[in-house]
């Protein structure tokens, strides 16, 4: 019951965020030159002024702004994101088609990055000021400064063009009718390069965070307690110190999800990964404003939900929070 209340409280925080996103979207929509009626009129090719006015009335665009906002909000709350006038399909179904690929890519990247970052950061801190620490720190510094999309291109050159061992794009081999275990393997092999490209920056980030966090934890008394009861240095590092040091890293991973979504757009563009990023790129090329705003809305919701999940996860990891 208590934990249910806790979840409920956290979930309630989502409401103002969603409202905020709605306001932002509405503002952007109205700052754009030309409204939906103009766009449709332009596409149908030389419509009369009467026709455009008629369209405007049917969309409710002639009403006062605040009324329009509540109509818009009502639509958003029922997940009615309008229609893509370019693709002639509801925005929501376009997004729903693409979201799983992005979620798969991001989940893979963030899981691998968090685990590797924690591992490398822990090792670097345990070998503080030794050569292994220096190597890890320098590599992290380099990876931290590398543009992701460029890294993707270079990985394609090396692994796909030169070595020819990994596919350079897409999510699966097209035109093959294969059993599901092979299909999983096929997708996995397509996933390797995009996930590495997207994840490497975060490996670097979490390595740096984890290292700093570990060095901080190493000064705490309970580390001395562990040593005084005969725990080996390896165990002190990986168990006693790491369990405390990973808390700020998990917090950071939550904050970074929105940032990662931006990286995902670029990486998907590089690898032709059929996700939201790719959809956004296409919407850009076709000046499909409804679709663009729909993606902004849904991806913001995704981030808010992901933050909520991390919040709840934090409660599990830190016993002091679970009250």
């Amino acid at each position: 019951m208590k934990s249910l209340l806790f979840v409920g409280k956290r979930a309630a925080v989502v409401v103002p965020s969603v409202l905020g996103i709605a306001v932002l979207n509405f503002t952007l929509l109205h700052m754009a030159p030309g409204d939906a009626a103009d766009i449709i009129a332009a596409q149908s090719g030389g419509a009369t002024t009467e026709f455009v006015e008629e369209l405007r009335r049917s969309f409710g665009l002639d009403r006062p702004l605040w009324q329009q906002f509540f109509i818009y909000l009502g639509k958003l709350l029922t997940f009615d994101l309008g229609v893509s006038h370019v693709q002639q399909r509801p925005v929501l179904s376009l997004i729903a088609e693409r979201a799983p690929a992005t979620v798969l890519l991001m989940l893979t990247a963030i899981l691998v990055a968090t685990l590797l970052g924690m591992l490398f950061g822990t090792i670097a801190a345990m070998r503080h000021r030794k050569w292994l620490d220096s190597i890890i720190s320098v590599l992290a510094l380099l990876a931290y400064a590398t543009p992701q999309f460029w890294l993707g291109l270079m990985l394609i050159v090396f692994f796909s063009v030169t070595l020819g061992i990994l596919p350079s794009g897409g999510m699966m081999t097209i035109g093959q009718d294969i059993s599901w275990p092979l299909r999983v393997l096929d997708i996995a092999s397509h996933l390797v390069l995009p996930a590495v490209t997207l994840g490497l920056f975060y490996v670097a980030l979490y390595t740096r965070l984890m290292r700093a966090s570990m060095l901080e934890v190493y000064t705490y008394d309970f580390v001395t307690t562990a040593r005084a009861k005969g725990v080996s240095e390896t165990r002190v590092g990986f168990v006693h110190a790491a369990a405390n040091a990973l808390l700020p890293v998990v917090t950071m991973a939550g904050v970074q999800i929105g940032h990662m979504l931006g990286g995902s757009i670029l990486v998907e563009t590089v690898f032709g990964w059929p996700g939201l990023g790719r959809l956004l790129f296409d919407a850009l090329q076709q000046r499909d404003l409804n679709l663009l705003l729909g993606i902004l809305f849904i991806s913001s919701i995704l981030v808010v939900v992901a933050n909520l999940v991390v919040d709840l996860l934090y409660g599990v990891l830190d016993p002091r929070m679970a009250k």
Partner: protein
Amino acid sequence: MSALAEFWRRFSLNAAAVVGLVFLLLIVAAAIFGPALYPVDPYDMIGRPSQPPSARFPLGTDVSGRDILAGLIGGARVSLLIGLVASLGATVLGVAVGALAGYRGGWIDAVLMRLTDFFLTIPSFVLAVVIIAIFGPSIVTVTAAIAVVSWPPVARLARAEFMSQRDREYVQACRALGMSGLEIATRQIMPNALPPVIVVSSLLVATAILTESGLSFLGLADPDLISWGYMIGVGRTVLRTAWWMPAIPGLAILITVLCINLVGEGLNDALNPRLRQR
């Protein structure tokens, strides 16, 4: 003067930061004086397309036969300028919001921080893309869009600094002297709150350059200007046959961003000695 000497002494203790600073100054010099020293028009199609590096074209030519070295120098101007101005804008905006929230507190603080957290939550790159898509890509909209999505961390930091300074004795003394809130915030607290903000906004330059390159890569760049991200986008089309074409501008971004990060860490050592990383 001795404060400056002390600053430099602390900064120079960090060898990596000094190396970063030297290379960064070289890059800035190349951006400023490069076009004079290497007077080749980066927009001019002056040779056969897609040539590898040679004596005539030190870094080769791109798909349209434009000189890549000249593009790199021209791109440095655009990338550095956008990076600098965007992070300056984000800093001004962030400090204004953070100072107001931290100094006034109460409901103003609550509202502003909600707003800041909100902007931290929404995917900043997606927002930048939408903003530029709506207003059309130009150097002004790109810079503004990057600034608009970069200010929240500055605001949070500035708020924390202003909150910690607001009740100090010297501020109370100023109030007793009848100074206005604006005067106290800008003249008295600002100089004390600024050092950590400077560190964060120096690192923002690096992030802004990375963001700009990503936007240009997606085609959201000023169509009249060459930037590093744009060059990578152009080189991408011949990735399989001429990998160096996208590789070169990418390296330029990597080195610049690396140098800025190193300098940022040095600034941190020099300005926030207590926060020094172990």
